[in-house]
């Protein structure tokens, strides 16, 4: 009798786990499945989860034939990669220095700086964007990738400082002290010892920032106009035309921009969770 209850509990437990997995993963499966369907199959009144006749035609269309004003998916991918990559690199450099400083040194005004960093995490950035847009217009910098680069720096640096502070707080400082005693300068310690050891954490924080930019629609839609400067989200949204939506192509494009990110997240998630936990909860 007892063993039957135990078995029942086990079965219920695994059912809950399976349900959880299904909820988590089904939209992702749907995405990949739709990207392999032809448009005829997508526009059927009885949609199937598994494509009946898998085809790569949507991928081919997205990469080779879809054009808006002479720009292609490849242009937008490059734009996204360059802007997000550059903004991430600069922000990681600035934010790691600041995060290190906040976690290791005592100085006047430290608590004010730290309060500001935390306050910015909760700040609705659209407030900043309103006058940022006006200022860009005044300096004739609208519709430029440089402006987008600046706005991503503005988003990434505070998040970066927040995460790096937690990250450095959680790492030991004994090697650093030893290097200081051996006559290494503070910047030398940072560059030769701290940063190399922090690379996994820096990769995770960098990825976190990069993805924010990679999927950003708010800033891109306000700042960028012409199709040669579009980033991937703007390009993807353009598939949703006024009268017809190229679902197959949208799904293929979405899969292309999602799968590398998901793989990177899975790979770096241990560091990501440790960093977020340290920054957001331990304070």
């Amino acid at each position, binding site marked *: 009798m007892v063993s039957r209850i135990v078995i029942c509990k086990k079965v219920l437990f695994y059912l809950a786990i399976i349900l959880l997995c299904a909820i988590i993963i089904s939209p992702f499966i749907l995405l990949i499945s739709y990207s392999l369907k032809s448009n005829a199959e997508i526009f059927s009144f009885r949609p199937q989860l598994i494509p009946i006749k898998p085809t790569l035609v949507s991928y081919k269309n997205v990469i080779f034939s879809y054009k808006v004003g002479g720009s292609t998916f490849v242009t937008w991918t490059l734009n996204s990669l360059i802007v997000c990559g550059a903004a991430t690199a600069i922000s990681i450099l600035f934010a790691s220095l600041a995060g290190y400083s906040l976690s290791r040194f005592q100085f006047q005004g430290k608590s004010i700086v730290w309060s500001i960093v935390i306050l910015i995490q909760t700040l609705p950035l659209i407030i900043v964007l309103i006058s940022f847009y006006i200022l860009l217009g005044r300096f004739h910098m609208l519709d430029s990738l440089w402006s987008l680069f600046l706005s991503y720096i503005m988003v990434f640096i505070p998040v970066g400082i927040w995460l790096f502070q937690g990250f450095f707080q959680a790492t030991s400082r004994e090697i650093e002290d030893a290097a200081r005693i051996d006559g290494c300068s503070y910047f030398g310690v940072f560059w030769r010892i701290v940063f190399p050891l922090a690379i996994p954490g820096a990769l995770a924080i960098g990825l976190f920032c990069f993805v924010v930019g990679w999927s950003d629609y708010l800033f891109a839609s306000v700042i960028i106009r012409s199709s040669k400067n579009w980033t991937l989200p703007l390009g993807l949204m353009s598939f949703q035309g006024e009268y017809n939506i190229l679902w197959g192509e949208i*799904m293929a494009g979405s899969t292309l921009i999602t799968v590398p990110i998901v793989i990177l997240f899975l790979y770096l998630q241990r560091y990501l969770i440790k960093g977020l936990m340290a920054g957001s909860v331990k304070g």
Partner: protein
Amino acid sequence: MILMKSIFQYLSKNKTAYLFIIPSIAAIALLIFYPMIKTVVMSFTYWYIAIPKSRSPFHPFVGLENYRDVLAMSHFQKTIIVTLVYTGVCVGGRMLVGLGTALLLNKKFVGRGIVRGIMIIPWAIPTIVACIIFTLALDPVYGIVNSILQELNFVETNIPFLSKPNWALLSVIVVGIWKYFPFVTLMLLAALQGIPQSLYEVASIDGASAWKKFISITWPLLRPVWAIVMLLQIVWTVKEFELIYLITQGGPDYATATIGIDIYLNAFRFFKMGAAAAEGMLLLFFSILFSIVYFKFLMKKGESMW
């Protein structure tokens, strides 16, 4: 002179600390604070790009007129209600689902590593892609959700999820919960694993039931983290823009227009910059309120636990 000297000494001692922090502070001041102060000023000036007032100054000071305009908007009350409902239900849902799944994943079972690994997927999928997937899945004619509901005989006719006000709000809430509950799960799971196993062993010896253990060990130790994660979720959700905008654009008839979306529409579709700035101030006020609470919690917890 002595003062100068001591300031100099102080600075050189802390030179590295300041040197490391100055690039970031400069960027924040220039790119965040300067525009933000401009927005505050804008909220008190006439700033409607489509119909400029010809008299100089170009953007005259109008006192609280923008604020009055915002309060007089016919859909303002709706916007506030939608924002509160979206934030409340989304955060509540994420916290409950997050707690349940964290407790589930804290048990040892075959394949736990894999399940915990894929937990991060909804969060890793770019918001725009998530919105595209759900827009197609919820389509009234070709959507797979309707086809499944029909198959299971739950509904007679297809539900127009995104074009009926209440269905649209429910849909974006469900997507909002799905996208971010893994964040809560993973945070709570990390906290659960910090609870010493010996406490449970002692309780088992005393013959405590699973529920008793949860109430007297797990929950008291988990609650500080739970509260902080919830506060973070509130401040992040109340300003939500992309996830809703990319599915419904705030429609139908402002049924899913949270305050973040309404600010965006006012500023960048209707170009009523002054009104948008004033509305932004309301959102800012709310955000600052909650971030002060968050900060207090963080400080209190920093003293007591770590």
